[in-house]
């Protein structure tokens, strides 16, 4: 049976239980979840809001490649990933959830970490931080 590979970019609030439901199956022995939230500081500056934009079609193509990598490296791992986009997310808002489920914990942990690092590296999602002094800055850009 093919592993479950689910990916969504959405403006709606993210719900962990909806993603967990997608990956459970009788052959699964462990589920690992990563939840990314808006942090209130970066480089000693107070962050009050985050905004995200994405190229959804390109992101789906990148995520498809990540799913293939996972299958090649760790075999059958069920995956559900959701990324939120939109403007002015307040501190504590959930913006990313990665759920990986596998027969054994090693594969579930390794695959989860791999997906997160690949998202940070290649997923076409752009993040803008708004600081308490009113300034804003696109993450990663050298101004």
């Amino acid at each position, binding site marked *: 049976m093919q592993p479950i590979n689910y990916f969504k970019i959405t403006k709606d609030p993210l719900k962990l239980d909806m993603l967990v439901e997608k990956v459970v199956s009788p052959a699964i022995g462990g589920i690992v979840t990563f939840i*990314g939230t808006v942090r209130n500081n970066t480089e000693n500056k107070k962050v009050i809001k985050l905004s*995200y*934009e*994405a*190229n959804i*079609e*390109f992101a789906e*193509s*990148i995520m498809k490649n990540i799913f293939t990598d996972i299958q090649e490296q760790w075999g059958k791992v069920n995956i559900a990933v959701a*990324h939120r986009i939109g403007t002015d997310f307040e501190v504590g808002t959930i*913006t*990313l959830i990665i759920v990986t489920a596998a027969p054994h914990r090693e594969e579930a942990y390794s695959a989860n970490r791999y997906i*997160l690092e690949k*998202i*940070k*590296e*290649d*997923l*076409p*999602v*752009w*993040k*803008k931080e708004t600081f308490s002094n009113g300034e804003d800055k*696109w*993450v*990663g*850009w*050298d101004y």
Partner: protein
Amino acid sequence: MKDKLTVELFGILKEICKTDNIIIEVELPINSKELIEFFIKQYLIKKDNISQIRVAVNNRFLSYNDEIKTTNEIIMLIPPVGGG
């Protein structure tokens, strides 16, 4: 004669250019690095930012030496991504 490439922009690049797509007139073929250099010169972006921009064509990242050969492809300039 120069060729017209339609290039999609995102994030900071969209803000700098005040639009989400631009037309760049260049002679084809052009490789990815040359396209980035042409872009930053045209839009007065500092040279330090060259390494922060990647080119993607038809939803695939190009390496610096990969060439764009036709005008009928979806070309994107990708500033640093920040998912998560």
